């Protein structure tokens, strides 16, 4: 009996320990930004209050069960007046306590909401994120009309400078999506035909995972994005790289033949590669595809094998996805992969 209890306790401890694995990339209880930190505080307050209320209610129920009245054979009599008054005071006290508790939660909620909203915007960095079924279009805007050529588009990957507030403008092209990076902030819905905004600041470097948080169809669960918070210098370097048009491939090389395949087949109809004739806005921008460590909205690692499978049979990986299957000849597929891998 004792050993069984010990095993049970050990199992419970192990389960609990699973919750405290170091820094996490997709967790509300490991805040990496000032807003997530405030939400985290509110979360703990709610948890503590709710646990206390639950324990008190269960204790009251237990007491009521233990202190039961006599059997049904006893005649019913009205309780003495003093007992009636005492009971009335107890009920009024409990109602008062409930109201006070709810007010504490209400005020904490209100204060947190105001503090989240008052994030100072030091920089002018604006990122427009557009939800598509089932990927994220990410556009780095330039407010200065003279600098419009510096605006660029990427997909499923957002780089932000650590310590600087970034304005996210959120849109959707088809159905309602929701932008959620748990380590950095709460959810913000993306609504077709209506632009929503949220400000985010990461206070430590790292890679944080985001997830669509509003059911949007077949591949909702695999609609992920990565947010990379990095020091300002690294961030500027990344910006400079992304602003470049796609890398030219040497004439007659396999990359060049792959580019030919890209422009002749179905790829060109949906995808953009800056600096070439490919300008489709239906699928993700591929100008710097090889610089992104993951493909298919965070589902797969960006390796040659995965890329080949994704191009030829995307529905084997993500059923219902918008990308069509492309039955390419083996030779065409190989040179196409050479070309895609050269898009650094």
């Amino acid at each position: 009996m004792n050993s069984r209890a010990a095993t049970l306790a050990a199992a419970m401890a192990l389960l609990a320990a699973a919750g405290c694995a170091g820094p996490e990339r997709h967790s509300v209880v490991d805040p990496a930004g000032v807003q997530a930190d405030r939400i985290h505080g509110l979360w703990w307050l709610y948890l503590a209050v709710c646990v206390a209320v639950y324990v008190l209610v269960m204790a009251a129920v237990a007491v009521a069960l233990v202190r039961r009245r006599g059997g049904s054979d006893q005649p019913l009599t009205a309780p003495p007046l003093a007992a009636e008054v005492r009971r009335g005071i107890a009920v009024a006290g409990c109602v008062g306590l409930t109201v006070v508790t709810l007010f504490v939660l209400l005020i904490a909620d209100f204060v947190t909401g105001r503090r989240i909203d008052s994030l100072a915007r030091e920089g002018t960095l604006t990122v427009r994120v557009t939800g598509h079924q089932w990927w994220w279009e990410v556009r780095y805007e330039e407010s200065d009309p003279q600098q419009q050529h510096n605006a660029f588009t990427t997909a499923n990957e957002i780089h932000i400078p650590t310590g600087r507030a970034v304005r996210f403008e959120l849109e959707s092209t088809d159905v309602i999506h929701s932008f959620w990076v748990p380590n950095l902030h709460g959810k913000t819905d993306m609504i077709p035909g209506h632009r929503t905004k949220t400000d985010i600041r990461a206070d430590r470097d790292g890679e944080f995972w985001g997830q669509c948080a509003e059911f949007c169809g077949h591949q909702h669960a695999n609609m992920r994005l990565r947010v990379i918070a990095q020091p300002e210098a690294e961030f500027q370097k990344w910006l400079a790289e992304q602003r470049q048009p796609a890398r030219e491939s040497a004439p007659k090389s396999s990359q060049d033949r792959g580019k030919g395949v890209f422009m002749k087949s179905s790829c060109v109809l949906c995808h953009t590669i800056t600096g070439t004739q490919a300008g489709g806005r239906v699928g993700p921008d591929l100008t710097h595809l090889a610089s992104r460590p993951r493909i298919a909205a965070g589902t797969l690692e960006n390796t040659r094998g995965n890329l080949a499978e994704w191009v030829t049979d995307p529905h084997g990986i993500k059923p219902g996805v918008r990308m069509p299957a492309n039955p390419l000849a083996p030779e065409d597929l190989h040179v196409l992969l050479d070309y895609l891998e050269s898009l650094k």
Partner: protein
Amino acid sequence: MVRRALAVFTACSLLVACEREERQFRSAPPFGGPVRFEEDYQNNAHALSEGKRLYSAFNCKGCHADGGGGIGPPLMDEKWFYGSEPEQVFDTISKGRENGMPAFGGEARAPGINVVGTVPEHQRWQLVAYVRSLSGLASRNAAPGRNDHMQTKPPENEKEPETPVVAPPPPDVVLPK
């Protein structure tokens, strides 16, 4: 008696569910096999709505608008320059036509026709089904309903079927030099 009738009725109405529409993500047509136009496209709500999505995605709208025409001819009337049969529409989309219709099947019918990549074959069939639904030639049970955004025409599933008429193609447009 009433109870038995009710039971039979319930059983019969359950049978209706047997004719469930199939939605194939990894459809057979692009990898060979005969094209079952009626089942897989013309009477299939998924194929028709995909066709509608692709109609915008590949910018058919740019010339044909929402079916009323503009630079290109209208698609919601009874007139067909190059034939209304599915194979004929497929041929028009795939190889293009003189007068400006680009080829979406990878190779043009004649020199001078612009080739805009290769739309996968099953997507071209989805487009054929949707284009035919614009003049009411698809199943009204399967055709797309009302748009979420502003309406420019009644929804496809409310379109009265037109009787196709073969009209002579317009004379070649001579572009000013």
